[in-house]
């Protein structure tokens, strides 16, 4: 079984969000970078669990980005994974990134590709579906459980108002979210071992981006909370009914 886990570098969830260069670039000053939580906690850890069950499993990691992605790739290797690829292109276009990863899939013939359900910075939730279409492979999004079966795999995924379980053949691309696995912390042996694991830098394919981010904007500041006394709950009801008109 050969598994690829896609990991993305994102700002820490508590980072101050600000923009520079006339609101066209994310302000990276003072930002702590982390592995996108969905990629780390759910996609990577589920892959590691599968390898723990079947040691013949190979886990590759891939991140698409510049050299500043390497610390988070090493951190991911410290959690698990046998070797990693960094595809050397910086792009905010999901299709450009998907094409790079699909080219790696085509070369390495993965049985399973795990991604996080979305990156917490771009919120596109589109990488997995694009990889699946190009590779090609089955695609199951928003997975909360994954097991291998004789026919391929059985995957439980979120649907509106509940969950459904799907059986499909491999290869498959699975976008992972809460439920798939539990967050782990790398141990010292993992951290030491990660230093010597191979990290290949791969040249990117030339792709014309389908989309371009032209400008960012911060939401307008809230007008400020209107506080109502705890002794006058009826006033809150009046405000919600007459002023906000939401009840």
């Amino acid at each position, binding site marked *: 079984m050969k598994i690829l886990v896609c990991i993305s570098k994102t700002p820490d969830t508590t980072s101050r*969000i600000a923009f520079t260069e006339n609101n066209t670039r994310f302000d990276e000053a003072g930002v702590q970078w982390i592995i996108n939580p969905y990629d780390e906690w759910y996609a990577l850890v589920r892959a590691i669990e599968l390898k723990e069950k079947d040691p013949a499993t190979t886990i590759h990691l891939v991140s698409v980005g510049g050299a500043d992605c390497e610390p988070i790739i090493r951190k991911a290797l410290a959690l698990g994974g046998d070797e990693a690829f960094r595809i050397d292109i910086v792009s905010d276009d999901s299709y450009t990134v998907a094409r790079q990863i699909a080219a790696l899939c085509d070369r390495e013939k993965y049985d399973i590709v795990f991604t996080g359900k979305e990156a917490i910075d771009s919120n596109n939730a589109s990488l997995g*579906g694009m990889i699946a279409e190009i590779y090609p492979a089955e*695609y199951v*999004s928003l997975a909360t459980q994954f097991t291998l079966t004789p026919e391929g795999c059985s995957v439980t995924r979120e649907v509106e108002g509940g969950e459904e379980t799907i059986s499909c053949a491999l290869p498959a691309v699975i976008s992972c979210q809460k439920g798939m696995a539990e967050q782990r912390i790398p141990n010292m042996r993992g951290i030491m071992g990660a230093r010597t694991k191979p990290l290949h830098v791969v040249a990117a394919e030339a792709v014309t981006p389908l989309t371009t981010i032209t400008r960012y904007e911060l939401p307008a500041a809230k007008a400020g*909370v209107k506080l109502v006394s705890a002794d006058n709950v009826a006033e809150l009801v009046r405000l919600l009914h007459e002023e*906000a008109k*939401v009840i």
Partner: protein
Amino acid sequence: MSVLIIADLQEGHLKKSNAEIISYGNEIARISGTSAGVLVLGNCSDNLSTLGAYGASQVYQVADANLQAVNPSVYVSVIAAVIEQIGADVIVFSNNPSSKSVAPGLSARLGAGLVSGAIGVPDLSNGFSVRKTVFSGKAFAEVSINTAKKIITLNPNSVSIPFVAKETVVTNLSISVPASTRKVTAVNKIEGEVPLTEADIVISGGRGLKGPENWGVLLDLAKVLKAGTACSRPVGDAHWRPHHEHVGQTGVQIAPNLYIALGISGAIQHLAGVNRSKVIVVINKDPEAPFFKAADYGIVGDLFEVVPQLTAAIQQLHAEG
């Protein structure tokens, strides 16, 4: 530049989200001087002419039983075939678990730029630019689509465009549906609850409720408001409430008209899941709770005293009609 709106169906029924995506697709057609059609995939137990109430004049249907379950590769093939047959340049979906499965693959298949989670009508003044949320709702991005064909998934509850009822013509399309070995083996729907992402009002509880046995006050309020119920991450992690109720950065992201937070401090990760709510009410006994900074209305007080009074006051409001 014609517009194709992919109708939102659940178990063969039309969902209320169709009103928003049809009026949105019609608005794109209007500003670009073209027409819009609605595509229904699979069999539908509702009368499709009811879509006319939301302004749909042309409805296409591929009535094939193999389309009842959303199978990404099959849906991509069928939608691509429909586009080839009837022609469409802008494809509109509602952003939900189904479209998250289909729209990315369709984008790659057609070489059509995709904006997922759009929150506004495209700006055509300089190309084709769509606004979407990024950084989990902490910022917006203007995304320019560079390709002739364009795909937009619209976040629910993002735009309010008035719609004018129209006479609807339903056309059946004959499209061959590819075979697939993929199967849905189990469906587990939570019965009798308002699905969180569809709820107009959501009541959410945090550690301030002190334990699962105290949820009655919250559920009573939810009942009078016909609201969905949610919780913060610590509550989900402690199994006080089911995981699917967890709203926040790593849980469900919602955008109801009214979000009422009871005993939730409002950590930045929680706000990321709820900050697109139109009106936020916070009830917390700690006046320093950061949630008050993100709220529209607030009460500093003991929720076990305040919430039953709130429930009673709303009942009275309803009684007065």
